[in-house]
């Protein structure tokens, strides 16, 4: 088949300008692939994580109760508001790792593994019909710990007795926080095995699915209250804790659904930005091609082409770019989606069932990747082809007629520079529309780049704020509580320890005047002059010496109890005891949930647990936190000393361990954002190259004149380089201005998605300086090609151009 000459012209020119074509195709592909990657990964995550989660009957509510039997569960299930119940016994003990260390493991036991109704785990390997002395391990724990079916595991009970169990199954449980995140293993065994280990044959957690309004938080909690008042309390069972599973998720939703959706939304916005910028690059490239071919357009019109045909040729050119871009982008997006979903699946412990390209994503990619570039390319194509045949053949390349705008007048006044630099400066601002477009592209890239750094700085600042409340080197829990003096004495015996504080913790509710109770909150008893907390007071004051009624609450509590403020009276209820207090201060949010801080004496009165400690916090230096290694050593010493003293067998934690894990997760997200910002910068740089190329083409005669009057190659190159660097610098200034609000929006979105906390915004000045260097490099790199072309123009070629 013979291809008509006009289409042949387009195809040959795409082929002859391979570098340019590849750059445009790749930049288009980057945008379209990003959109494909994010949307496809989102679909995989929704299908394979949220879908699988939904299919396993997620609990609306977990209730931690005093030991109960299946009859209680059956009674609760008979309630009209309850769809299903599942009793289980949960217990955290220790096991011996291959490395010879004792680590925590959460054990779960069910009445019948064949008939689990809620939070259903799935068997991956071996079996789930568990006999005595048999255990099944959650698959991520098993993988991380190197455990396989057939291995033997040594468990250690609180009373130091050891039990050998055999691993007979590997189980996938989507309803527990994964080992990668929590650092605690999960396993399943039978009630008989727990009885063999000395536990009562009763359950201590009741999982519940409500029958209606399953995602309504208030309704679910009210059902919990009904269960307690109508079934549990009459049956003389104590409710220790009622919780909606997850990190602030709605009931029945995956524990990280909000966070994952939030991040996906942010990535999607970045993807759309990438595609907008790459479409912009198409505009630049097509403008460059058209300007280069203005005379050809004139000739084609002189030999009979009508404007529609010329427009068709250039749109065909864009169409080829977009089709090639799509051909690269679609598989690239799919690979990217696989990578992103795999990353998420490793992290959140789910399986990707199949890698396929969802039709809706393909449709979106085709619409965005095909229609958007074609749509935006219409602008330069229509405007450039409207030129008259006479102007196209005889007038183009002579330079735009001078328009005396403000910038032009300003530049005319600048005189203390060398002529080549003045030439560059005036060139830069000659075509305002093109300059504006290039600046918009680079400014957006810059603003995004700096915003990512600002988000990082904000997260660090946020973490620093939270860390004020965990202002210790090491801490250890004292389960069941011990005498404050004993605990503190043991901690002080560790060499070098300077600060020792014991804290008491209990759960309480706020008792309202109408008889209702709030969700559960934490009550903390701590010294008024505590040194392991550096509270950020938002309002009022901190606890004073001899405080008898004054309490300090945090913003998590004021967020839920909006009527409570400094000066308010609140009645706290622990068990059956109620006590009314006055709020004297409010401290900032610190990811702890709702809290009330009070003195140890007040805590003792409220809870009837006088002089008891639930945890101890220590510091080597009263003024500065110790280095990570010293913290680790101190933690190990605490564990040994407390175990030897028979006070606690818990694992210690350190300040560094808590925040190190935190920042690792953030860093992964930020790395993805940085990659996207760099891609945007690459697209911006390609746009700048296109603009400079067009400028060189448009100024061919002037460059020829410069050469004719003796300008060296270096001087000509410098003219173009100066132009590139000036544009880069102007975009940097604009990007710096935009990065303030843009960073605020991005950081707020990330912090809200990941921490469910309010933003403490921190602008990144290092990010601003790094972008200055990057944009400088982009300016120079983008100028090199056009500068070389300008320098290689001979005076004869310039004459030919006439």
């Amino acid at each position: 088949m013979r291809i008509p000459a006009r289409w042949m012209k387009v195809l040959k020119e795409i082929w002859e300008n391979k570098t340019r074509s590849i750059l445009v195709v790749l930049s288009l592909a980057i945008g379209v692939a990003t959109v494909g990657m994010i949307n496809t990964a989102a679909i995989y995550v929704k299908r394979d994580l949220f879908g699988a989660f939904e299919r396993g009957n997620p609990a609306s509510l977990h209730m931690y109760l005093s030991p109960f039997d299946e009859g209680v569960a059956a009674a609760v299930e008979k309630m009209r508001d309850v769809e299903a119940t599942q009793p289980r016994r949960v217990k955290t003990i220790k096991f011996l790792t291959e490395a010879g260390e004792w680590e925590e493991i959460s054990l779960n036991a069910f009445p019948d593994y064949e008939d689990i109704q809620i939070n259903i785990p799935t068997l991956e390997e071996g079996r789930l019909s568990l006999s005595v002395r048999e255990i099944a391990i959650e698959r991520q724990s098993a993988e991380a710990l190197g455990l396989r079916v057939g291995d033997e595991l040594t468990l250690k009970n609180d009373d130091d007795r050891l039990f050998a169990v055999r691993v007979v199954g590997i189980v996938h449980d989507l309803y527990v926080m994964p080992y990668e995140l929590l650092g605690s293993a999960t396993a399943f065994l039978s009630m008989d095995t727990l009885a063999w280990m000395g536990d009562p044959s009763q359950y201590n957690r009741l999982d519940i699915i409500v029958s209606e309004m399953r995602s309504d938080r208030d309704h679910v909690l009210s059902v919990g209250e009904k269960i307690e008042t109508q079934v549990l309390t009459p049956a003389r069972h104590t409710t220790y804790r009622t919780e909606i599973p997850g990190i602030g998720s709605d009931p029945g939703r995956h524990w990280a659904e909000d966070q994952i959706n939030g991040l996906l939304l942010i990535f999607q916005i970045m993807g759309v930005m990438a595609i907008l910028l790459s479409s912009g690059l198409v505009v630049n490239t097509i403008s460059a091609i058209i300007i280069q071919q203005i005379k050809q357009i004139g000739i084609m019109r002189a030999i009979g082409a009508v404007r529609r045909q010329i427009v068709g040729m250039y749109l065909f050119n864009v169409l080829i770019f977009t089709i090639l871009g799509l051909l690269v982008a679609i598989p690239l997006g799919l690979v990217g989606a696989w990578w992103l979903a795999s990353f998420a699946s490793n992290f959140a412990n789910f399986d990707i069932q199949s890698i396929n390209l969802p039709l809706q994503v393909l449709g979106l990619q085709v619409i965005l990747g095909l229609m958007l570039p074609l749509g935006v390319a219409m602008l330069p194509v229509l405007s450039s082809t409207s030129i008259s045949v006479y102007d196209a053949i005889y007038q183009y390349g002579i330079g735009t007629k001078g328009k005396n705008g403000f910038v032009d007048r300003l530049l005319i006044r600048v005189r203390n520079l060398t002529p080549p630099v003045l030439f560059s400066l005036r060139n830069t601002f000659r075509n305002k529309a093109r300059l504006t477009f290039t600046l918009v592209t680079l400014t957006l890239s810059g603003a995004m780049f700096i915003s990512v750094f600002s988000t990082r700085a904000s997260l660090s600042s946020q973490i620093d704020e939270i860390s004020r409340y965990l202002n210790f080197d090491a801490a250890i829990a004292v389960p069941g509580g011990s005498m404050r003096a004993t605990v503190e004495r043991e901690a002080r015996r560790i060499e070098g320890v300077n600060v020792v504080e014991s804290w008491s913790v209990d759960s309480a509710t706020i008792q309202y005047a109408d008889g209702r109770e709030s969700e559960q909150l934490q009550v903390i008893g701590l010294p008024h002059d505590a040194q392991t907390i550096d509270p950020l007071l938002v309002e009022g004051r901190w606890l004073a010496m001899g405080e008898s009624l004054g309490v300090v609450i945090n913003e998590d509590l004021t967020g839920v109890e909006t009527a409570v403020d400094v000066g308010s009276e609140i009645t706290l209820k622990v068990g059956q005891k109620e006590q009314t207090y006055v709020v004297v201060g409010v401290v900032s949010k610190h990811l702890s949930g709702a809290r009330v801080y009070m003195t140890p004496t007040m805590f003792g009165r409220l809870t009837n647990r006088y002089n008891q400690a639930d945890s101890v916090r220590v510091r080597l230096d009263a003024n500065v936190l110790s280095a990570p290694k010293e913290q680790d050593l101190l933690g190990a010493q605490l564990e040994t000393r407390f175990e030897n003293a028979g006070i606690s067998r818990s694992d210690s934690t350190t300040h560094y361990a808590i925040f190190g894990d935190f920042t690792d997760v953030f860093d992964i997200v930020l790395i993805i954002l940085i990659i996207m910002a760099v891609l945007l910068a690459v697209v911006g740089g390609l746009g700048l190259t296109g603009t400079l190329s067009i400028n060189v083409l448009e100024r061919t005669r002037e460059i020829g004149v410069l050469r004719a009057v003796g300008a060296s190659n270096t001087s000509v190159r410098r003219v173009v380089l100066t132009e590139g660097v000036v544009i880069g610098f102007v975009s940097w200034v604009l990007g710096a201005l935009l990065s303030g609000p843009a960073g605020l929006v991005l950081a707020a979105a990330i912090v809200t998605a990941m921490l469910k906390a309010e933003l403490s915004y921190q602008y990144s000045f290092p990010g601003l300086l790094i972008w200055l260097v990057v944009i400088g490099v982009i300016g120079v790199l983008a100028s090199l090609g056009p500068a070389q072309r300008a320098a290689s123009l001979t005076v004869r070629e310039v004459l030919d151009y006439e």
Partner: protein
Amino acid sequence: MTNATATILTGNLIQIRNLVKVYPTTAGDVKALRDIHFDIEKGEFVAIYGKSGAGKSTLINMITGIDIPTSGEVIVDQVPLHAMDADALSRWRGEHVGIVFQFFQLIPSLTLIENITLPMDFNNTYRGPAQVERALALLDAVGIAEHAFKVPAKVSGGQQQRVAIARALANDPKVIVADEPTGNLDSTTAAGILDVFSGLVRQGKTLIVATHDEEIARRASRVIEISDGSIVSVKKNSVERVEPVA
């Protein structure tokens, strides 16, 4: 386009009436053409003769519809060009006029044969294999058929100008207009190009050539000399129809 396809009933193929062209510049208006008035008959070989800057190219651009007059009329083959829009002019040019430029103006990315099929493609003439056959025939007629599949950069200036002439003939127009067609060629090559032109006149084409070359002017049947945008003389040469030089 009924006017454009109208049958010629009179001998005057081209009628120029009171033509004025003014270019506005920052230094003031420049009158490129001043009240130009003449006719060209079908089959004539007319040379628009004058020095550089006299207004020859401007006048040629008016006759081809590449540029529009400030006032006056340009009627070619009974079609009033001054009243047509840009697209109508393009279509009309494609069908009725072949243009040869001083710098050849071939499309560099297309082969010589593709350059010739391009106007056929734009004007939907000689479809399919007929396009290629005609293009090859035209290349043969101007003597460079063996270079048909080369790109312009691979052939000499004279050969490029022959291709430009072949392209001008692609849609078999009645009128061929050439602006300094030998201005960029050496004398031997230029002579060859003139031979091609002579052949076209013998085939009955109307040929208008803008030139400052006396040799071309001598070969024309009529010479319209212009200076400073005005016609200063109209001279009929004794040779009514030039014979090709062997």
